[in-house]
């Protein structure tokens, strides 16, 4: 298992480096730079600005500088938001984005697993049809549809929940719900299939014929196996939910880092874009590593090797 995990860790680091490198060069390939704003700057001023941010140096040099800076845990200054470092901006927005993302992930997992298991244990019944029918609809309505509708119903018409901004956990409820609905549906479908399949396994038949209580069979024998595919899906799901917050932050006017990202990409604020991508990538990769560790512990084929 150590070998398995060290390979995974190495791959994670390589992936991280590839992301940083790809985004760095992609940004520099883009036409335009951070300083061609509304007003044309005099050439001398622009020259000085570029020199101050080391943008006058050859590209490989800039790349090395950036990696060195990153190695010291520094994300650099923002090119556009004067007086702010990228780290300060990221730290101010990260709690919002993470809260929305994590809330959505928890809702997606609990909702999806509960509904999926329920349907999987009752395949072919009306309950199953109802849950799966709803799930199929859930898959087809993305956050950009659900979010405005939820805001319209619960904030504007009913006035139960705030429509935007921050100020308490309630403010995150609508964004997280909007974000998680398609994932509740996807996880429910996955769980249902997996539970139904596991029920057909010989060892479940054995447990049944031994007369073990049904609850116990489900908890001890069905779910640990049936949830393995769900576990491996949480990696991509977490990535999608975290980055999906870019969209709901826009709709609910939440001051998270997703909003910086779109703005910064349009402004060619190189360091801020890099900073946001690095933070997202770090969280996603870390989460995936965590999922791999859990998987390795749960799957005896990996746990017992070497």
């Amino acid at each position, binding site marked *: 298992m150590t070998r398995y995990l060290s390979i995974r860790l190495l*791959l*994670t680091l*390589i*992936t991280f480096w590839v*992301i940083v490198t790809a*985004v760095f060069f*992609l*940004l520099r*390939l*883009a*036409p335009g730079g951070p300083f061609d704003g509304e007003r044309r700057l005099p050439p001398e001023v622009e020259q000085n600005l570029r020199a101050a941010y080391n943008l006058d140096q050859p590209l490989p040099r800039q790349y090395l500088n950036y990696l060195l800076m990153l190695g010291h845990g520094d994300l650099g200054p923002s090119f556009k938001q004067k007086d702010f470092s990228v780290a300060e901006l990221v730290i101010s927005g990260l709690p919002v984005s993470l809260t929305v993302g994590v809330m959505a992930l928890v809702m997606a997992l609990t909702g999806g697993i509960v509904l999926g298991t329920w349907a999987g244990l009752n395949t072919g019944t009306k309950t199953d049809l109802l849950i799966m029918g709803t799930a*199929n*609809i859930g*898959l*087809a*309505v*993305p*956050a*950009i*549809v659900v*979010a*405005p*509708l939820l805001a*319209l119903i619960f904030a*504007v018409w009913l006035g139960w929940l705030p429509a935007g901004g921050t100020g308490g956990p309630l403010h995150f409820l609508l964004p997280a719900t909007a974000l998680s609905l398609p994932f509740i549906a996807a996880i429910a479908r996955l769980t249902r299939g997996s539970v139904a399949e596991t029920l057909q396994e010989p060892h479940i038949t054995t447990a049944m014929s031994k007369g073990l209580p049904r609850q116990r069979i489900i908890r001890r024998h069905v779910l640990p196996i049936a949830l393995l595919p769900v576990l491996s899906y949480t*990696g*991509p799901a977490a*990535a*999608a939910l*975290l*980055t*999906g917050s*870019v*969209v709901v932050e*826009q*709709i609910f006017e939440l001051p998270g880092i997703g909003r910086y*990202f*779109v703005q910064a*990409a*349009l402004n060619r604020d190189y360091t801020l*874009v890099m900073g*946001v*991508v690095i933070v*997202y*990538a770090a969280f*996603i*990769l870390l989460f*995936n590593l965590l999922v791999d560790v859990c998987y390795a512990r749960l799957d005896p084929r990996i746990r017992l090797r070497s």
Partner: protein
Amino acid sequence: MNSRWLREALFGSSLARVCSTWLALMVLAALAGPALSPWDPQAINWDALDNPPSSSHWLGTDMIGRDLLTRIMLGARISLSVALIATAVSVVIGIPYGTLAGYLGGRADQLMMRIVDSLYALPFILIVILLVVVFGRSQLLLFAALGAVFWLDIARIVRGQTLRIRESDYIAAARIQGAGPTRILIRHLIPNVLGPAVVYATLTVPGVILAESFISFLGLGVQEPDTSWGVLIADGAQNMESAPWALVFPALALAATVWSLNMLGDRLRDQLDVQAARV
């Protein structure tokens, strides 16, 4: 493979017939709709701002008086063509990658699939946004960028299929006759994984439609006066308190299309599994 299973998947139940009909309608609307409509999708009409659905504007009008039905049909044109082209790109990347990994096997296969696994973990929406921002808002690029994101699923499926048929007698026979790896890949493996790959690609189409709508919603994709369902939903969301129809109808068109595609994709896949089980 005969076409009976295809007919069964597309028209085998009333639900399937509803989905097929809806999709056919959408394709027709995308192709011919804007030309058939009496309204110009771009013409601003100051006498009909934010009109609710009526006999002249069946689905109402938008903030600047353009006929919503006509614009939804125009949006279908872009949303559907983005989806088709991006899916084609993903198939073109995914099939060779998957067959090669499956055919080579061993270390090379493991390495290639690990790469796919790591790519799954990338913050993809961010990367697509970057690509779109960096290379300008050309629609062609949007197609390519989305296709480049969605090939992973296809590659996985195709690899699995390849592993299965690699051991078939006809592959062994081809090898004994002296066919080289390139010939086996191109003449024997790829044609045989094409069917399953295309079936799974039908499940990619709705994903691309959703991704495009996200990007357009953020104002990074399709630009005015062109439109897509994502743009229409974004416009509708801005003004939903006074004109909810401008949000509801494009959202319905998007949701119904994605739902139909998911349904038919599932049916196609199930039929394919039945076929595979029979062989």
